[in-house]
């Protein structure tokens, strides 16, 4: 198969992309879907962004996220505490789901990307199942909800305003950093470029 024939995943139109066009931003003429992003981000840059995010997330888990003072009571909660708050009886499945949405799935996306593209970035052969890993990165995207969690934090702070004093812990700011870096990383993840790089490395 010639790899310069590209299909639009949204509307089924097909295009033959000349190599010089594949490096630019191209759009589907029928539905406007972006076929190629035209950003010349190196794979090494994507992999190092992912590695940074993994390191930041590891810090988020252990540092306090929010601290609450009410009279003589004090309570510092890490992200894990936020999730464990649910963990009684029938709420356990919900606790696990929340943990997955805000922490595990974003983390998995970073790890899968490092697994799939890391070897290319350092000039080695692809690891086994690299294609599955890269497919997972795109598949998990709608289920990783770190940015939605941040808005949830803002709402919770307002709701608690007259009950207690809340101070924001360092993990909050680190987590915000992960959300921003992740959003930036997603703007660089051109499917066409990444899949071409992966298949050419075999």
């Amino acid at each position, binding site marked *: 198969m010639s790899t310069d024939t590209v299909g639009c995943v949204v*509307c*089924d139109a097909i295009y033959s992309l000349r190599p010089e066009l594949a490096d630019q931003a191209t759009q589907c003429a029928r539905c406007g879907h972006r076929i190629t992003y035209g950003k010349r981000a190196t794979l090494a840059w994507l992999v190092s962004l992912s590695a940074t995010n993994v390191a930041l997330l590891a810090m988020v888990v252990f540092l306090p996220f929010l601290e609450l003072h009410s009279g003589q*009571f004090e*309570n510092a909660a890490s992200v894990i505490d936020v999730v464990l708050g649910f963990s009684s009886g029938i709420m356990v499945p919900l606790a696990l789901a929340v943990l997955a949405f805000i922490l595990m799935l974003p983390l998995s996306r970073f790890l899968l990307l490092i697994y799939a593209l890391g070897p290319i970035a350092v000039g080695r052969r692809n690891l086994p199942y690299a294609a599955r890993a890269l*497919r997972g990165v795109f598949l998990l995207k709608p289920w990783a909800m770190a940015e939605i969690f941040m808005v949830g934090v803002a709402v919770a702070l307002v709701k608690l305003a007259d009950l207690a004093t809340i101070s924001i812990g360092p993990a909050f700011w680190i987590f915000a950093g992960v959300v921003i870096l992740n959003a930036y990383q997603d703007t660089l993840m051109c499917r066409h470029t990444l899949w071409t790089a992966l298949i050419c490395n075999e």
Partner: protein
Amino acid sequence: MQRVITARETGRVVCRSCSLVAPAKQMRCARCNEWLQSRDALSQQKVWAWLIVGLIAYIPANLYAMLRTTQSFRTTESTIVGGVVDLVHHGAYAVAIIVFVASIVIPVGKFIVIAYLAILTTRRHRTDPHRLLLLHEVVEFIGRWSMIDVFVVAILTALVQFDVLATINPGIAAVCFALSVVFTMLAAQSFDSRQIWDRLEGKSNHE
């Protein structure tokens, strides 16, 4: 404008995961191992199945309590709507609007839009495909934001645990609501956007 040719017209199929073009008979993508289908024949059934279970879960999510707050031995329960009303009473209008949009407007809008797309694309239609695609993309993009309220419940539960003085516990509606969001996200993902153009009348593909 360049003449648009579809993969189906030329007996080929586009991989929905990596956009590689393969012969129609091929079962799985050579590049990413995704299952290949020119059109998802079961798309309609999947959309309706997920949409209906999503709707079923959304009903108890509104009837039962999201939050059970215990303060000085008195327990009060608040539903989704009750939570929004409380915020308005506290004068936090901006946040009340955020919660109202995320928990009521988006889910209800999503049920209507997905049903509309599923009904419309099974018959011949003249509706502007760009508008239909935009609706689908908006639903896919915005649907996840309904989760805000579930996360708020999780955070409040974790922070407010002062034994008898004040505790906040999640209610059963939090589970129902989370399930409803997940099911409707699956409904939106099951919709095969390629169908939008399949039964389009009047304007041809060539534009």
